[in-house]
């Protein structure tokens, strides 16, 4: 009898977790659809969009730039030492470029921006929830999904590819600097080699990924903040959950998108 009840309790725990997961997935999906649909329906808040674009895009430039610069440099060193094993040191420029543009630019940039933006959006919206500012918007005939969520989603979805593009350029430059100063490449040959092997498809697919990551970053920040629990603890939990869930979703989406974009 005791065995039976403990087995039942164990199964119930699994069931409750599974149901909770389903509920959370459903709530997130509905939130995402609602938020995205408000991007296309008036009224729009262009001033709010501009503010968010500046905050998410412009002020993330230093973080993304530094990440790309050092990653590009390290990549050049790694590929050089790997390539030297079969006398293929000359692949450094092309592989740095392809690696940055297709994978590391969007993913590392996305993860850095997730840390910066998801957290601050979640904390901001969470505090607004806790201090009833979100309810106050409703009483002022302003839909918070339109005024708060839609501009952030749109701003991040547009800003992230631009950031990733800047990151691509800086990352390739990082590889170039290391290649020329440490690995004895001729500057002109390095640039020519980069140009020769990098295609438009590489760049575009990387930017598509970045746009998806941007959406995920803003979505998780907004969702967690919007549904924040009460008090400082609630906002703290919302912030943590936003960063963790955004990062994991970025990595998962990256695999799925890579599969979809490059396997064909």
């Amino acid at each position, binding site marked *: 009898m005791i065995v039976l009840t403990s087995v039942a309790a164990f199964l119930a725990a699994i069931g409750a977790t599974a149901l909770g997961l389903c509920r959370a997935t459903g709530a997130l999906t509905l939130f995402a659809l609602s938020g995205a649909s408000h991007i296309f329906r008036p009224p729009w808040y262009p001033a709010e969009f501009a503010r968010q674009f500046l905050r998410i895009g412009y002020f993330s430039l230093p973080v993304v730039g530094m990440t790309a610069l050092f990653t590009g440099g390290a990549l050049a060193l790694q590929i050089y030492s790997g390539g030297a094993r079969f006398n293929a040191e000359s692949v450094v420029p092309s592989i740095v470029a392809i690696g940055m543009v297709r994978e590391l630019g969007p993913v590392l940039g996305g993860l850095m921006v997730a840390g910066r933006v998801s957290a601050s959006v979640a904390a901001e919206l969470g505090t607004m929830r806790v201090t009833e500012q979100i309810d*106050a918007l409703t009483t002022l*005939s302003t839909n918070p999904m339109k005024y708060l969520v839609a501009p952030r989603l749109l701003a991040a979805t547009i800003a992230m590819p631009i950031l990733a593009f800047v990151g691509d350029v800086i990352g390739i430059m990082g590889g170039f600097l290391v290649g020329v100063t440490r690995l004895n490449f001729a500057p002109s040959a390095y640039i020519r080699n980069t140009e020769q092997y990098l295609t438009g498809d590489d760049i575009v697919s990387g930017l598509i990924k970045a746009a998806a990551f941007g959406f995920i970053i803003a979505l998780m920040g907004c969702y967690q903040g919007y549904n924040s629990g009460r008090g400082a603890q609630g906002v703290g939990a919302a912030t943590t959950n936003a960063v963790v869930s955004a990062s994991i979703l970025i990595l998962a989406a990256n695999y799925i998108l890579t599969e979809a974009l490059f396997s064909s």
Partner: protein
Amino acid sequence: MTDANPPAPSRIALKGVRKSFGPKHVLRGVDLDVAKGESMVIIGGSGTGKSVTLKCVLGIIEPDAGEILINGARATARNREALLSRFGMLFQGGALFDSMLVWENVAFRMRHGAHRRPRAEAREIAIEKLRRVGLTPETADLFPAELSGGMQKRVGLARAIATDPEIIFFDEPTTGLDPIMAGVINELIRELVTEIGATAMTITHDMTSVRAIADRVAMIHEGEIRWQGAVGELDATEDPYVSQFIHGRAEGPIAAIR
């Protein structure tokens, strides 16, 4: 004012409104009528469902059962929008937008709503409303965080009355204020409600507020309206719950530990 049926439909009517959060039954069938131009004050202890009642009327919380009528019509998304377009609310903590200047808070509806006004004009109206609640024009260009609690309440009040609403809700207007500031806010609320001719609904547990603001009083207890009547009848009532509440006695039918 009596309990007899008013000639016009009530501005706001709640009929058997119920709401539970999980196993906790917050509202167990609230029936309440607020006539046009009347100042209704809902009293009751903490956690008895005052705020939830207010949020149900606003549509922020969806009731599990019962009806909410606005001007006699069942509340839908559409007529709720119409209600909110002529609506103002003072939140307990002010709920000012801390990323905006004081005047931008007051002028929010004029800057974002369907009837948008030019910046300079909106600012002028905002400053006028700030003056009406006793704040100098210099406060207009400060951020809410730079103001004291009493001043934030006043800004919240100015925002609530900025577009001369037909309905105003006050959520615990005097909580956290010193007695003198509470008196000032009570007096302001009474003046403004009379001046604008608005229908007002206030929730509070401050009896000084009740006497200053109310035309009619309803007491909510355990998710139901326990008693309602004109403010003048409050002291005469023999209802043990009301009498315990208004005299602030620890002993009585209402358990002190909740």
